[in-house]
């Protein structure tokens, strides 16, 4: 009997390999991300001083939209091939499946963010006036906050009508404290005005609380389908 960790790893590498072979989702997501950045640049004039102040918010809203599009097809492959039924009867702990999916989404969204961020920097002439290294924990913790709940709610939405709209509908209200933390932390770091430590700690708390909740309740969700 393999350990839960090895199952997680196996599922994760399988997903990444499948994704890499088709590259369809990845390419269309990359293009979508580029479009989002450009639309935002048209809508919120990058030259205005105000735009630089809200750049932190703009980036995260853009990431949020990209993440939702990525999350929506989290379980699509499993649904198509009745993999979920197999998982229900297998002795593998449901957590492993969830963790693999969440980590896969995490990697995917981080890649998108790495593409979108330089574009934002270019279009908005962003300069980091605060401690730039702090953007890394903000980025990692913030992305995980969106992805962990997003993967969970994607599973909850599986058997609902209008599945694609159900996911953001469930995700956005719950994510409000996380989004506020990400945006404030980014704004503070970019402007070099104040200390982002509180927001980073709040993000960490949010991540711990909801990762625990998702791991604890995913089994219930899986068997409820």
């Amino acid at each position, binding site marked *: 009997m393999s350990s839960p960790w090895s199952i997680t790893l196996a599922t994760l590498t399988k997903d990444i390999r499948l994704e890499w072979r088709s590259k369809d989702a990845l390419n269309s997501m990359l293009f979508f991300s580029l479009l989002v950045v450009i639309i935002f640049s048209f809508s919120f004039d990058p030259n205005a001083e105000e735009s630089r102040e809200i750049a932190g918010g703009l980036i995260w809203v853009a990431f949020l939209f990209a993440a939702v599009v990525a999350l929506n097809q989290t379980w699509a492959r499993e649904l198509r091939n009745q993999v979920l039924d197999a998982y229900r009867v297998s002795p593998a702990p449901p957590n492993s499946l969830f963790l693999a999916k969440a980590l896969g989404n995490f990697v995917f969204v981080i890649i998108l963010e790495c593409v979108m961020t330089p574009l934002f920097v270019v279009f908005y002439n962003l300069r980091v006036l605060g401690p730039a290294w702090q953007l890394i924990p903000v980025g990692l913790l913030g992305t995980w906050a969106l992805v962990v709940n997003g993967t969970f709610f994607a599973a909850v939405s599986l*058997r609902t009508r209008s599945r694609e709209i*159900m996911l953001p509908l469930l995700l956005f209200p*719950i994510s409000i*404290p*996380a989004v*506020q933390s990400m945006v404030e932390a980014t704004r503070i770091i970019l402007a070099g005005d104040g200390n982002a430590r509180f927001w980073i700690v*709040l993000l960490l708390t949010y991540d711990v609380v909801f990762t625990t909740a998702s791991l604890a309740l995913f089994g*219930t*969700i899986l068997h*409820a389908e």
Partner: protein
Amino acid sequence: MKRLFPILALLTAVLLIYGLYQALVVAPTERTMGDVQRIFYYHVPSAWTAFCLFFTNLLASLVYLVWKNSKADALAVASAEVGVIFCTIVLVTGPIWARPVWGIWWTWDVRLTTTLVLWLIYVSYLVLRRFSDSAQTPVLAAVLAIFGALDVPLVYFSIWFFRTQHPQPVIGGGGSLDPRMLHAFLINLLAFSCFGAMVCWARYRLERLHREVEEAQALESLLGAPQ
């Protein structure tokens, strides 16, 4: 039980009318805000009732998750729906109060924003219940209620800190409190609590009837409709 409901409903109606009288006639006019402050007698009791109902939903959801009791699930549906109604009233009366007193319709203050997020979470709960076709919808909804409950303290805390950094006017508070005002407030608090409980009970009975009818219909189609 069936006799009890009309009696309690009548009692609640009397309390509400008495509360209205207290709020509009007996309570003195507030010094700084004027008569508009009387909205307070409806705004805060509605908020209290909404939070109690949402808490009821949380408890009912937990009971359902552990014991799969269908009565608990019916109560969860009822308390969520009625809670959203009362919460809507809080979000409507808040800005109506804020506009003449502070000159703004909305401010991201702690209580109002937390109420808004609670409203959003429970509206999404109701949408999930409506859109989910699975027989396991109650389980999914119960899990959502738990996630919502975990979220609320985080919401409150994050907005609280945000506001210490960016202070703005506070809606729904302040003003002097004369003992007659306290009396009027407590009467309305009691009246709205009873009213909330009554409507929730009515909705609960409606839900149970709905399920009875569904079961009866399913049974009939299973056995074949008699000619």
